[in-house]
């Protein structure tokens, strides 16, 4: 196996994007979709075939030198080790299913060439992040992901809100990107390297304060892409895009990039205990915040958006408490069940004639038992039903947090457990409101395209069974993912079996409790019953208002001051004053250019008089 073949993985989606982007409008509709699906599926196939290359220390291969200037050396290089290989396998696999689903979902849309181009480009950019062997190339993919999300979230740009949502996603994530860029440049300035293994290897030589600052900058960059506090406001609005895009953003690409970045640089990150605690706290606070917001959301996709934010928070906790394998495990299971939930939500919306509002749904179970079972599978994984994939992965992270002992991380663990209860509560609320009881609104409903139905079962199986990927010894597994990642996996929590069982029982109990609470409250639709705290949670703790008041208002004020106070008054005043003076004087002088010869001759005569006077004066003075 030639290692150069690894470049096929990112380049195949790029090829698909190029074909669709350049010639898509000339091709028949079916061909466009087929090209997009085939490109990603082929990348998945290549990924599977080349899997052996990731074993041992992994493979590093270089296609060409990208930048070489002085000490800076950045290649188009791929680092294919167990971490990037498992991530790339998930990205291509889940993306393939989402692309298939998108073909069904978009079968009435006109502008599919642009859609599939951006979709393929999105996967390409994500694979660049995953496979890059140096931070500059990673940053290139990072920006590419930002651009594609902008194009896809605002895909239906004719509606102004959609275009605004795309812009918001682009700008808010861009705030994080700036921090990441600073971190990369700082690393280069401090170490003279940008290659990921080199940076990880040389990280120990950095001063502790520098290291902490760099890791915090990396965290800020990760927060932007992964929608963690305080850069999370773009994610709920990103639901403006088509549903396959939401699935792609939430499951396979984009939001997982931040977690992956921290995992990729974990040897660097783990050297700063302060920054690790900050990472864990950020994750915990975001998880709790998003969990409470999800409780009050009315749009089905916004519930899922907040749940993603919350689950990514768990992954940050995982990184923060030092278990990369736990974070990656949750990332993988989450990718499966969240893609499933989004695609299921797309089916539900389709069945309800485009209705988004869960208060106006109800009774979908009777209309489509198939979708109900699929959605239920995803929901149970999300809520953490014992022995589903989500249960094991979430439990692993909470266990690792608990094992860190008392202190700040115990608080993180407690928040994580509280959020687990909230997760169960809002998931069952969603399930009851959408599927239970009679339909609250008369719908005609369409038949679902086959591609939208049959892409769900594989994800359901993967989501429910994903626990096998990293089954703890307690349940008879041997933590396959942890061993696969080897030296990259971080530490295993050192706890005895009693604690482990106790924590699992707590998690299972919270799952049941949340389910029961939702059953008590939502098994029949209780009516809308508006309240101030509901609108507060619905608006995401008024985060947008907070941003408006804390950043945008002062910014606009400053801009207005610069425009009106400085530019218009001071600079324009000075310039205009000078110009006006010149003009006034010119007007006065204008009288002399009468155009009449006699005036000019008079001028000569006066000149003569002056000359004569001058001579006279100098005569007198000598």
């Amino acid at each position: 196996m030639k290692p150069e073949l690894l470049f096929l993985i990112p380049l195949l989606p790029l090829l698909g994007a190029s074909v669709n982007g350049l010639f898509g409008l000339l091709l028949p509709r079916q061909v466009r979709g087929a090209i997009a699906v085939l490109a990603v599926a082929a990348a998945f196939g290549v990924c599977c075939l080349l899997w052996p290359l990731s074993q041992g220390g992994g493979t590093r291969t270089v296609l060409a030198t990208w930048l070489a200037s002085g000490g800076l050396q950045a290649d188009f290089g791929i680092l294919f080790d167990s971490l990037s290989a498992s991530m790339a396998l998930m990205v291509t696999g889940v993306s393939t299913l989402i692309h298939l689903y998108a073909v069904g979902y978009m079968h009435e849309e006109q502008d599919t060439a642009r859609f599939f181009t951006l979709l393929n480009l999105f996967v390409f950019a994500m694979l660049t992040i995953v496979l890059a062997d140096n931070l500059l190339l990673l940053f290139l993919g990072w920006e590419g992901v930002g651009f594609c999300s902008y194009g896809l979230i605002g895909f239906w740009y004719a509606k102004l809100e959609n275009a605004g949502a795309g812009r918001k996603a682009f700008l808010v994530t861009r705030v994080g990107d700036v921090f990441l860029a600073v971190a990369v440049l700082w690393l280069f300035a401090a170490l003279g390297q940008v290659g990921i293994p080199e940076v990880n290897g040389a990280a120990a030589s950095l001063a502790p304060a520098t290291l902490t600052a760099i890791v915090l900058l990396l965290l800020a960059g990760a927060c932007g892409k992964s929608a963690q506090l305080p850069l999370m406001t773009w994610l709920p609005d990103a639901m403006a895009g088509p549903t396959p895009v939401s699935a792609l953003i939430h499951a396979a690409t984009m939001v997982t990039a931040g977690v992956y970045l921290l995992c990729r640089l974990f040897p660097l990150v783990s050297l700063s205990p302060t920054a690790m605690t900050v990472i864990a706290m950020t994750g915990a606070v975001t998880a709790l915040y998003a969990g409470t917001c999800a409780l009050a959301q009315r749009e089905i996709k916004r519930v899922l958006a907040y749940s993603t934010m919350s689950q990514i928070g768990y992954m940050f906790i995982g990184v923060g408490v030092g278990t990369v394998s736990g974070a990656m495990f949750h990332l993988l299971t989450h990718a499966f069940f969240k893609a499933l939930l989004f695609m299921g939500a797309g089916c539900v919306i389709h069945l309800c004639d485009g209705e988004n509002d869960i208060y106006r749904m109800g009774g979908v179970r009777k209309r489509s038992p198939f979708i109900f079972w699929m959605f239920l599978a995803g929901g149970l994984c999300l809520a953490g039903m014992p022995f589903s994939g989500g249960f094991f992965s979430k439990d692993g992270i909470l266990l690792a947090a608990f094992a860190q002992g008392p202190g700040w991380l115990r608080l993180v663990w407690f928040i994580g457990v509280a959020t687990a209860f909230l997760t169960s509560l809002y998931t069952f609320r969603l399930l009851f409101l959408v599927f239970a009881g009679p339909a609250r609104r008369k719908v005609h409903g369409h038949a679902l395209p086959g591609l939208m139905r049959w892409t769900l079962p594989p994800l359901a199986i993967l989501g429910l069974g994903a626990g096998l990927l990293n089954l703890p010894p307690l349940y008879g597994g041997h933590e396959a993912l942890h061993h696969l990642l080897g030296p990259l996996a971080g530490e295993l929590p050192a706890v005895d079996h009693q604690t482990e069982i106790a924590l699992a029982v707590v998690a299972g109990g919270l799952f049941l409790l949340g389910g029961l609470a939702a059953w008590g409250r939502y098994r029949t639709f209780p009516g809308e019953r508006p309240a101030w705290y509901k609108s507060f949670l619905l608006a995401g703790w008024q985060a947008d208002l907070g941003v408006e008041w804390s950043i945008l208002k002062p910014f606009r004020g400053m801009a207005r001051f610069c425009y009106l106070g400085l530019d218009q008054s001071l600079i324009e005043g000075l310039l205009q004053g000078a110009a006006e003076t010149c003009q006034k004087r010119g007007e006065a002088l204008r009288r002399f250019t009468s155009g009449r010869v006699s005036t000019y001759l008079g001028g000569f005569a006066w000149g003569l008089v002056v000359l004569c006077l001058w001579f006279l004066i100098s005569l007198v003075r000598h």
Partner: protein
Amino acid sequence: MIVPLSHVLAFAAAMFFMGLGCVLARRNLIMILIGVEVMINGAGLAFVGASAFWQQINGQVLVVLLMALTSAEVSISLAMVVYLQRRRGNLEADNYNEMHG
């Protein structure tokens, strides 16, 4: 030198200023040109007087130069006068104010 230099200079100055007065007072182009001629000749007279006083040839050379210059000037300006008369039908200097700012 029979005539004292001061007399020559006074006479030259008188010619110059009479010519200047003509240039300033008259509006007819031909009269202005005549005034210019008188002024130039006044200046020429001053040169000749000075040349005779200091026994230097330079002043006379300059006067010859001045005569050549004057003839050239007169030929060009008379041609222009004829042209303007044909073109506009009058020679009032105040009618030509195209350079009005």
